[in-house]
């Protein structure tokens, strides 16, 4: 089981990598979204906010997210550190994402652009 701090750190690394990628920022400049990341086995909730292509991270849960990413702490930390792709856990039900299908694909694509295959 990963700790809340480990999830925070994984999301911080993810945010940093994203914001250093100019191409991603340009591609997502019209994609303003609020993404909540929520662990099922530890008390850990974070909010990623994308505005004008730039992403910021906050602890806690936003009230009306566009996307909610729910999984166990280990899977979340591994996904946001880029050690695993989200598709495997998504297809076996370990990872659940609430939101539109297009937004889910976009999120997976961002992970692909940051971490590669």
């Amino acid at each position: 089981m990963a700790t809340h701090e480990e999830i925070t750190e994984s999301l911080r690394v993810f945010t940093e990598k994203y914001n250093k990628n100019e191409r991603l920022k340009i591609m997502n400049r019209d994609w303003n979204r609020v993404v909540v990341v929520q662990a099922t086995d530890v008390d850990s909730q974070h909010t990623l906010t994308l505005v004008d292509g730039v992403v910021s991270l906050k602890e806690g849960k936003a009230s009306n997210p566009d996307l909610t990413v729910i999984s166990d702490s280990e899977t979340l930390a591994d996904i946001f550190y880029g050690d695993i792709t989200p598709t495997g856990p998504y297809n076996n039900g370990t990872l659940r994402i609430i939101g539109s299908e297009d937004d889910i694909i976009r999120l997976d694509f961002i992970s692909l652009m940051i971490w590669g295959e």
Partner: protein
Amino acid sequence: MRTVVATSAGLTLASSSFVAAVSVANFVLGDTAWIAILVGGLLCTLAAFCFSELNGLLPSAAGIRLYFNRAFNDRVSLTVSILYMLVVIVGVVGAESYVLSTLLSDVIPAVPPYVWIVLMLLLVTGMNIRGIKIAGIFQDIITYGLMFSMLAMGLIALFKVDFQLNAPLSPGGATGIISAVAVGVFLFVGFEWVTPLAEEVTQIRQISRGMMAALGILSVIYAIFTTAMTATVPKEVLASFAAPHLVFARAVLGGAGVTWMTAVSLAATLTTFNAGLLSVSRFMYATAREHALPQIFSKISMRYFTPWVSILTLFLIGLVVSGVILLTHRYLVLVHLAAAMESIVYVMAGLAVISLRRRMPEQERPYRIPFGNLVPVLTILVFAVLALTVLVTSPWVLVNLAVALLLCLVYVNTAVPYLKKKHQARRPATRRRPQRRPEGAGGN
């Protein structure tokens, strides 16, 4: 709710549905096709119950890939999913393009059928690459417009011929009825493809209600339309045309009927093509992302965020399949193939419900089918019989499905482990996530 019904019904309404409706009518005596269609719709409701429970338990756009993974194992899930997608794309593109191109060539004879196929595939491929979706209010308008058109045309025809049921409850022998019901299932193929909306709707139960409502409405509309077709034009004449609805429309309203039915058929095919290409290309993308298909299929357009390699591959497959069907005229094989595959998937959905009740007994279920395992068991038995009936009566379907299954099994058991191994070898030797220090191992 309105959009859930429209999505579920819209995915089933296709030009090849009219061919299947005539096929149903030819298996039974007189004007009793409506019985087989209503029974087919009722039986699909059994499967809808199973999908409702599965969707509530595991709400995900991954659909059967996830249900079967949890209920059986990853290999079974991957094999069935690939086979299903293969049959869907071959069936949908092959049968739909044949029926619509025949219809359009009848209306505008100067343009050869294959040109229509290429144009339609180009249009849908372009829409998919650009990420243009027929969704929301547009999907509602198209689907409800289609249903209204079928109902209106059917009622006008019945009124014009002063229709009266001659032998309302004498459909003939058991073999004919079972075959009619089995093909009748094709009329409802795809109603469960609405389950990926599970992540978008606020209440999971809306999906269940939407599926049931769509099945009910479609059963009545198909029953009226098919009865009207066979009451207006002899069944043998309808069966000799690849676009029987056009023959029917011409007989009912002349030139105006042809224009109306051409518009209906175009809308039905375009929405079916679009939904098929969208779902299968996304499945290919997701499968490539989990390293079960070559990496190239996970390539995404930097401009439109769509899996363009998968979409283009499906376009090429569509061109080949359509060409083969146009040369061989074996479009009915595809209709029966899709009906058999759909029945097999429904059998597995019933098995999955029972298996998951054992494997995940404590998991919250927003919807649970009443009466224990009765409905899942009935689903398994009914659709197993229907699948076997189609396979036994259509040897070509049996051969095609057996070959496709064999190829999928070989692929999943040889190519997939190779692709996963190749990916493992390419991965960084160390994990990016820092190793956690053991408890009490504080630094000095």
